[in-house]
Each structure stands twice: as C-alpha cells, then as structure tokens.
C-alpha cells in the first residue's frame, strides 16, 4: 500500500493513530493522536532524546517545530474530503516559553481552505493550555498528484 492508501484507510476506519504509524519520523518523535471532543490533538511523548538544552533542561526547538508542523498536516489530512499529502510551503514558529521535559500537545486550526492552498494556525502546550510553549502558522500546498 502506498502512504496515501494507508492514510485513506486509516481515515475511513477512524484510526487516528494509523495516520502516524505510516510515517517513520512521527514514530521517531513519539507522536500520537487522539480525538478530544471534536479536536484532533497530537501529543509528543517526552523522552530524553528530545532535549535541546540539558542545563535547564528544555526541549529542542526543532522538536517543537516538528510537532507543530505535524499537527497541522494531520489536521489537514483529517479534515480534507479527499486525502492528499499536504506539502509544507512555509512555516513560522514562535517560541513562547522554554519547553519543559514533559509531554507536549498540539492542535492545528485550518484558517483557510483553498483549492490549492491551506493556511493553518497551530498551538503547542504542556500542562496549561492557556500558556502555550510555542505557536506557528503554516501554508501548505494541497493538490492531488
């Protein structure tokens, strides 16, 4: 099965985790997904491998960026009527607080869904959702083929 077929099958089965299991890098980062109400929330499970600053300690900025970008892509895969692989055109990450050595959650909100382009805003938080550790906005190409 191609990735697209796996993703389509996972979506039809309502298997959020299936979206992640098809992608080696998502496993490397320890990503999982769950529906909370009508929100698809992506979680990056803490391991020492995610640390960027051992003195604080704090998560590596790259891991937070990757989590935010992944949450946006999964939101797009999940909400789109036909499954196409979104391609990231640009993503801008704001680092708001240092990431504690804890599980981090993220949720993307599609602010505009066009025929070719989707705009997504994403926030990542740890214990307190009202105090996000990072936020981002991304622009994605969502065309078939």
């Amino acid at each position: 099965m191609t990735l697209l077929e796996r993703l389509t099958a996972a979506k039809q089965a309502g298997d959020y985790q299936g979206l992640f299991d098809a992608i080696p890098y998502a496993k490397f980062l320890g990503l999982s997904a769950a529906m909370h109400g009508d929100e698809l929330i992506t979680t990056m499970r803490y391991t020492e491998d995610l640390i960027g600053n051992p003195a604080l300690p704090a998560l590596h900025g790259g891991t937070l960026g990757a989590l935010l970008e992944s949450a946006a892509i999964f939101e797009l895969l999940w909400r789109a009527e036909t499954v196409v692989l979104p391609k990231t055109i640009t993503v801008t990450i704001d680092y708001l607080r240092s990431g504690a050595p804890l599980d981090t959650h993220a949720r993307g909100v599609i602010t505009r869904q066009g025929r070719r382009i989707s705009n997504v805003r994403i926030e990542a938080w740890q214990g307190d959702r009202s105090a996000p550790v990072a936020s981002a906005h991304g622009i994605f190409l969502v065309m078939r083929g």
Partner: protein
Amino acid sequence: MADDTDQRLKLKLVRGFSVNVPHNKALGLEIVEIEPHEALFKLPYDEKLVGNPDTGVIHGGAITALLDAASGAAVFASLVNIVPIATLDLRIDYLRPAEAGQAVLAKATCYKMTRNVAFTRAVAYHDDPDDPIAHSVGTFMVSTKLGTVKS
C-alpha cells in the same frame, strides 16, 4: 594573539555544546565547521527520519531541527562571551523536496547581533548552497535569565 586563542577556545566550546545536545545526537547531527558568525551542520540520511515511506524523503521536521540547531550555533559563534540564548522565532521556507538517501547540510549565518537579539539566516542543501532545499530566517534572544551580556 590572545584574541585568536580566545576565539579558538570559544568556537571549540560552541562545538562541545552542540555535540552534547541529546536531540542533536538522536538525529545523528554532525558539526562540520564552526567559524565566527557561521555554522555548517550535517544531517546524515537515516530511515528513521523519513516522512514519506513511498519516496524515502526525510520529514520537514528533521530539516527544521537541523536549521534550528545550526542557527543557534551560529549565534553562539557570534557572542563575545558565551551566554544562554533562546529561539524567538524561526521561519522555514521549503523550496524543493530533499532527495532520498542523501545527507542534508545546513549553513547558518548570524548576520546581525545586538545587545538583546541576534538575527540568523540559513540554507539547507545537498551539494550546492545555491540549489537549496529549504531557507530559514530566525531571531534569538541573547542572554536569557541565566546570564548577562557584557556590552
């Protein structure tokens, strides 16, 4: 002469910091070169970093981590005294897909340093920096609450 020695020691220190970052180790990041204001990092190809198993192309997130790490090292390599830094923001433009099986290099430059903020740009590429996979610009807070900058 003393300045040269200080400079060399500082660049060695920056290299030591970067090598010991757990996530850099997990990614398999290699530090190719650290010079004043510049850092060249290498991300060897690894199947665990693949974003699309059909093509074998590595995930954008791994490129983000590479650019973030190289940009941070370029800031460290521009400081007069080593003080803590924190990324404020990072924008990454993905220009073309990486090729499967090939290492990705990132060359980062800290092109402006002020008392509080450092500004960086970086490119990720395979062989030719003029044919980039991704381009990034970033800002970093210099001297977080754990340290102070000597002006």
